[in-house]
């Protein structure tokens, strides 16, 4: 069933049309990748879905409800979780406390002035960490974790809000190739088992063609192609957009599509 509907989004910065006529949907449990060369408008579209930008025109619907002008906070309450291109965690807290913080917010307890935060939702937080394979590091400060691990903690934070839709902005940027596949396999299995729709942008074509069910190609703010990875790879317009970087669209070697 349709989870996210993005209808006819427009956004311009001064004279630059960063997005126009952008329309697509994401279904529950589906992984949709948004790709395109630098400056194609991926981040603009992404931030309009995430609430960091307001579109000039068009609508964003989550489960049929209009969230076009909702703040990031409100979107979180409606079931949008997100990760950032540069992982954003609370570095002064342990991995468990990071997830606990999200659970506290989810339960609307962040104005609590009395009972210590340390003791709240601890078990649930460790359980979420174990889902991303980080339960061993529950009491390690986030500032002491390797970057790949921080990314996994961030995923656990995003899952703490029991999202229906997960937004991942370049989820594997800055990670080693082996870690990338592991993280995306993990994301895919969680998304499938819990029926979470995942919208992600990515530069790594191995990740895109290995994990996305559908791919959306943006160029100069417009969608020029969409479809299964194979359809997109064969599309003439897409090939032209990536001219000079054609091998980027080749089938990944030694990997089977998930």
């Amino acid at each position, binding site marked *: 069933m349709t989870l996210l509907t993005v209808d006819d989004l427009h956004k311009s910065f001064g004279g630059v049309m960063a997005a126009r006529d952008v329309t697509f949907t994401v279904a529950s449990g589906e992984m949709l990748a948004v790709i395109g060369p630098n400056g194609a408008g991926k981040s603009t579209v992404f931030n309009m879905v995430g609430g960091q930008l307001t579109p000039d025109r068009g609508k964003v619907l989550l489960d049929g409800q209009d969230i076009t002008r909702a703040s990031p*906070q409100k979107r979180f309450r409606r079931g949008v979780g997100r990760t950032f291109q540069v992982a*954003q965690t*609370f570095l002064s807290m342990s991995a468990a406390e990071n997830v606990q*913080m999200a659970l506290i917010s*989810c339960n609307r307890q962040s104005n*609590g002035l*009395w009972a210590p935060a340390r003791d*709240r939702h601890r078990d649930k937080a460790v359980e979420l960490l174990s889902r991303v394979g980080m339960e061993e590091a529950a009491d390690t*400060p986030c500032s002491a974790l390797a970057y790949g691990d921080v990314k996994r903690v961030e995923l656990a934070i995003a899952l703490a809000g029991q999202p229906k839709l997960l937004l991942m902005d370049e989820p594997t940027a800055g990670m080693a190739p082996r870690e990338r596949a592991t993280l995306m396999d993990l994301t895919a299995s969680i998304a499938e088992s819990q029926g979470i729709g995942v919208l992600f942008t990515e530069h790594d074509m191995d990740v895109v063609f290995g994990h996305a069910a559908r791919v959306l190609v943006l160029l100069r703010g417009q969608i020029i192609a969409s479809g299964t990875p194979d359809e997109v790879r064969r599309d003439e317009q897409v090939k032209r957009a990536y001219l000079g970087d054609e091998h980027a669209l080749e089938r990944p070697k030694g990997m089977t599509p998930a």
Partner: protein
Amino acid sequence: MDPAFLAVQALSGLSSASSLFITACGLTIVFGVTRIVNFAHGSLYMIGAYTAATLVPQLLELSFGPVTFWAGILASAIIVGLIGVIIEVLLLRRIYGAPELFQLLATFGIVLVVQDLVVQVFGPQDILGPRAPGLRAPVEILGRRFPSYELVLIAAGPIVLGLVWLLLRKTRFGVLVRAATQDRDMVASLGVNQALLFTGTLFLGAFLAGLGGALQIPRVSANTGMDLSIIAEAFVVTVVGGMGSVPGAFLAALVIGQLQAFGILIFPKSTLVVVFLLMAVVLAIRPHGFFGRAEIIGGSHAVGIASRSPLPGRGFILLVVIGILAAFPLAADAYLLKVATEILIFALFAFSLQLLIGVGGVVSFGHAAFFGLGAYGAALGVKWYGVSMEAALPLGLALAALGAGLVGAFVVRLSGIYLAMMTLAAAQILYAVAFQWVEVTGGDNGIVGVWPSSWASGPIPYYLLTAALTVVTVLLLKRIIEAPFGYALRAARDSEARAEAIGLKVRQHRWLAFMIAGAAAGLAGGLYAFSRGSVDPSLLGISTSVDALTMLLLGGIQTVMGPLVGAAALHGLRDWIMPLTSLWRLLLGLSIIAMVLIFPRGLVGTVRDWWGARA
């Protein structure tokens, strides 16, 4: 209204705008390149005035004439420029990467050092400089006499603007300055000699400050209060204009000059209030001033409290501390008790600031506002409504919380340096009100006769009352820091984007934090008023705010209990050393600088690290 009067008023507004622009222009250029808000800029201005007032008369004795006069002004400015170079090489160069709070405090250390040095070098008395040869006779404007020197000043502003514009547009140095203002890291990676660029920028900035000061000598005598009064105005000009923007500073100086000239007609006593209100309004509408840009603040700039597991046996430690505090009157005389009472009050004050800075990452540079509001709230209650101490203390607390709510509503949408400047402005507005609203606040003399109720008067009972209230409030605040609310503040400090993405209402949390911290500071202020029996405007002044910050820094910003230790150390040292030397400010300034450079983690933090490394 008489048009001649209006014309003269507008002209004098233009001439003060010129002076202000010349000084503020240097501040904004230095900020643009180095990202340091240089508190010592006002000190450089003061040195310029003192140097010129001493140097120019001697030169005029050798050869009297306009050329000598202007050469003397220029020479003074160059001397100040060289002092700026010394400051850059010795200090600023070492703190470019430090968090803003440390930079502000270190440059404030220079302010303190310069204040004592100026008295040592030039003597304690004000020095009136000579009038400019050839510009002694006033000119007639619409039938009114107007000093001709002021006309020269009016021209000086645009001339300096033009020269700076040429320098920035037409020279290689200027291109680098503009490039660094836009993207410092990019300039560094292009292989530009950064050390030379920064030193040159400091020379230019200090030269302009010195020029601004030197140009004042025919109008006002060089005095020791010049530094802080000009820096407050220069801050407003740079912030309103947008930090780093020279045209912005020019425009802001023009607006503020006219506002001062005509504000006198509307609020005869409160030009300062008008000026700071302008800043409040501009920042409320444009959070980065006229031409400023959003600052990109890296995560490394957030220093503060991190999670650590609770100390084993902390209940026992708490009991021991309470026991020692309770038993202290048995061992101490009246004088020691008074000192201990004040230390406790300042510990509470510093601890309330820790909630904002160490926990929330909200660098408030005007925390004295709430301390002062608490003190004045209590004192006004006693003086005008004749209430007892039991009612006056909550009154002060409530007034401080209310003030913090109001200030907080303005500042929580700002960040970084703009927030620090806005809180400073808020404190300065209150200072001006307390200073200038003589009928109610008693002006400079303040309010006397604020004594505790009979059951609490005398050193021992008042000490015990203070100790009890301080301990209870600190424990409450500590509880809040450990509670979800404190964690939410830390979350917003660590990563605002992440905090929003998990649904935290960052501004709302920060606003509440302001009110809680303000209320606690207000309680401290009320206690202080009753301990001394009087209040005066200095409680709201910059130096009270800096005292609190120094205590935080001394104790350690990364520790919960640091501010308490810092308060004891600073107040104890002050009490011990101040009677022994006339150079207390010099010592304090040097210690602040040394702490920033050597012990950025503070006393408690350093001890804890040492303990951790040993274990």
